[in-house]
């Protein structure tokens, strides 16, 4: 294995636009070691013993919050979860004051999810614990972007040169933006497709990506397909006629899947709207790595904690 010279100690994990390819490689390598820990009978190592981590979630989440929590616990850290419904946030406390309160208790890292783009970056400017962005509005979800790369690398043995198709609701997707930055930095060929109402209007100006309006054009000969969740809860309506029509024209069906390479890998950040953006036969089919992604998510988050709180093996 090549020797890494980069250190990520103290780095705030805000978005993959802030990552160098070397840093991404370091996370993926470290995550591989972490995955072994998850497979042990006794899943506990002392790497983060004596460290305390707070997860601060202003938006509902099952898999991401649990994943960050378990990752911290497997590494021996103490974890406290704060959610907006059960804290002083409902009393109108400002984000700055909530962050000050958490910081004053001496935590080492804050994992944060918020509906406002830039909330994690704001936190990184206000308080000193390391900030790990678990999703800020439609801006970024860096750990999801990294676990996608990890999953692809595990299956394909490489990243550079692979063709990936990202399908669906890009407009509301923080995952898509982290994918675009991460995948391009690793030399992947990025194609985006979905109804035009779900694509940011000037996305095509971003260098190094190809935007299509019909998903067939993106899927053709793809090595990887990531299907995004239609985020109906963030829509005011009118972006497409019906979910039925969406499924028929823009859904990933077994028939459309045939356009891709035979060994195409299917990803979805979850939770899925089965029967809308993705057919059940595809979601649970042989090419799907959707369940695996969940486990890889824990490994990648363990890697991030280790690297930003201890510096990894160099420490």
């Amino acid at each position, binding site marked *: 294995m090549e020797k890494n010279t980069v250190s990520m100690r103290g780095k705030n994990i805000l978005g993959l636009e802030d990552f160098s390819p070397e840093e991404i490689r370091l996370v993926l390598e470290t995550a591989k070691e972490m995955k072994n820990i998850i497979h042990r009978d006794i899943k506990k190592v002392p790497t983060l013993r004596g460290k305390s981590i707070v997860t601060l979630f202003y938006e509902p989440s099952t898999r991401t919050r649990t994943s960050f929590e378990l990752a911290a616990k497997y590494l021996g850290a103490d974890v406290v979860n704060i959610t907006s419904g059960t804290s002083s946030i409902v009393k109108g406390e*400002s*984000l*700055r004051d909530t962050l000050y309160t958490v910081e004053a208790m001496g935590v080492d890292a804050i994992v944060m999810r*918020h*509906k*406002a*783009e*830039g*909330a994690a*970056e*704001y936190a990184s*400017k206000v308080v000193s614990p390391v900030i790990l962005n678990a999703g*800020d*509005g*439609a*801006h*970024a979800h860096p750990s999801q972007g990294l676990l996608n790369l990890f999953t692809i690398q595990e299956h394909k043995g490489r990243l550079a040169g692979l063709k990936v198709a990202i399908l669906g609701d890009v407009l509301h997707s*923080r995952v898509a*933006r982290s994918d*675009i930055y991460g995948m391009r930095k690793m030399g992947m060929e990025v194609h985006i497709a979905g109804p035009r109402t779900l694509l*940011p*209007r*000037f*996305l095509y*100006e*971003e260098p190094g990506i190809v935007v299509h309006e019909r998903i067939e054009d993106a899927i053709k000969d793809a090595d990887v397909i990531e299907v995004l969740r239609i985020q109906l809860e963030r829509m005011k309506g009118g972006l497409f006629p019906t979910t039925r029509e969406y499924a028929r024209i823009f859904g990933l069906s077994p028939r459309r899947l045939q356009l891709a390479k035979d060994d195409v890998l299917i990803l979805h950040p979850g939770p899925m709207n089965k029967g809308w953006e993705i057919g059940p036969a595809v979601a649970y089919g042989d090419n799907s790595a959707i369940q695996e992604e969940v486990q890889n998510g824990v490994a990648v988050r363990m890697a991030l904690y280790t690297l930003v709180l201890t510096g990894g093996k160099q420490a």
Partner: protein
Amino acid sequence: MTKMILKGGRVIDPASKFDGVADVLIEDGKIAAVGQGLKAADAEVYDASGKVVAPGLVDLHVHLREPGQEAKEDFESGTKAAVAGGFTTIATMPNTKPVVDTAALVRSLEKRAEDVARCHVKIIGAVTKGQQGKELAELGDMIEAGAVAFSDDGHFDPSAKVLLNAYDYLHAFDKVIVNHEEETSLVEEGVMNEGHRSAMLGMKGRPTVAEDIAVARDVLLAEYAGARVHVAHMSSARAVDIVREAKKRGVRVTAECTPQHLTLTDECVTLTDTSTKINPPLRSQADCDALLAGLKDGTIDAIVTDHSPHAEEEKDQEYMYAPSGFPGLETSLGIMLTDLCHTGKLDLPTIISKMTYEPAKCFGLSCGTLAKGAAADIVVIDPEKEWTVDAKKFYTRGTHSPFVGRKLKGKAVLTIVDGDVAMRDGIVE
């Protein structure tokens, strides 16, 4: 009352098209004379050599936040900021709490201005009750109380019919309506310009077309009604085209733009710098260029600040929750001189004209001139003075500005209101 001679400055008076070295004599609060070798026995002599002497700056678009939002600004702090920036007449917008939509409120603000203001304050009334866009406010009563123009600024009037009624009703009074031009359904959740930058930040956009169709509608309605309309803070290239064409057809339209829309683009928007959040938003370089062309060819009449201060804790929030706007009275002239005059993009007499005489004309105000007998509202500008924008030195209560930290060249050094010194060397008296 002070008797004063401003000696040997470059006098620029756009109203008379005078531009040359001269003295200005101030007596009894009025301009007594402009000419060579003026003398007066008991007058204070101010050496203006190397400096520019111009009519006090006029700003048609200011939010003084009274009544009800004094944590953001009030008449005293806002007018101190105005004279610090070289302004002697400012017009304040009615989107306050409550909205200024009755004669009683206009009168109460006139009284406040009399008591605490450091410069002339003109009151803009709301077009519709509560700025709700539904029923006309008591426009005639407000005019009798002193309102100089009307605006539902901050909001786009959703009903074309209501706006047409306002145009028609105001026709007899010859007052202008100032329109905030962004079609609501296209900007509802938007926080920045819709473009490549918003696409990659994941932030919701406010497209230029929202402004373009609003300007088109409101200008066409004014043309139909034969009414006067003033287009507020233009930011889009296409909107400039629409106003240009309308002016050619003889439509009674005037327009304004801000230093920020002339000099900044959405590239300076970041995830956390809420000072860059304004409505309409910072656009593209092509839009900046079109605004400059519009100023040059007369499509755009006025440079305004859209001075929109907010309390520190309001701007210190997540970008999407922070209110829009930032204070501009103390940076406007410096930005115009640094980024447009010293760069050769726009000559000094044009800048002065667009900040004095022409805006005054848009609202039919008598200020913005150095004519003999006019009120002695004067600014002396040191066009070479170098300074750094420091929010701690602001007189305004608003501290968030994208210009904070900028090194600028050119500043007002003396502001005279009705013959009295209101600001000298940056210090408000």
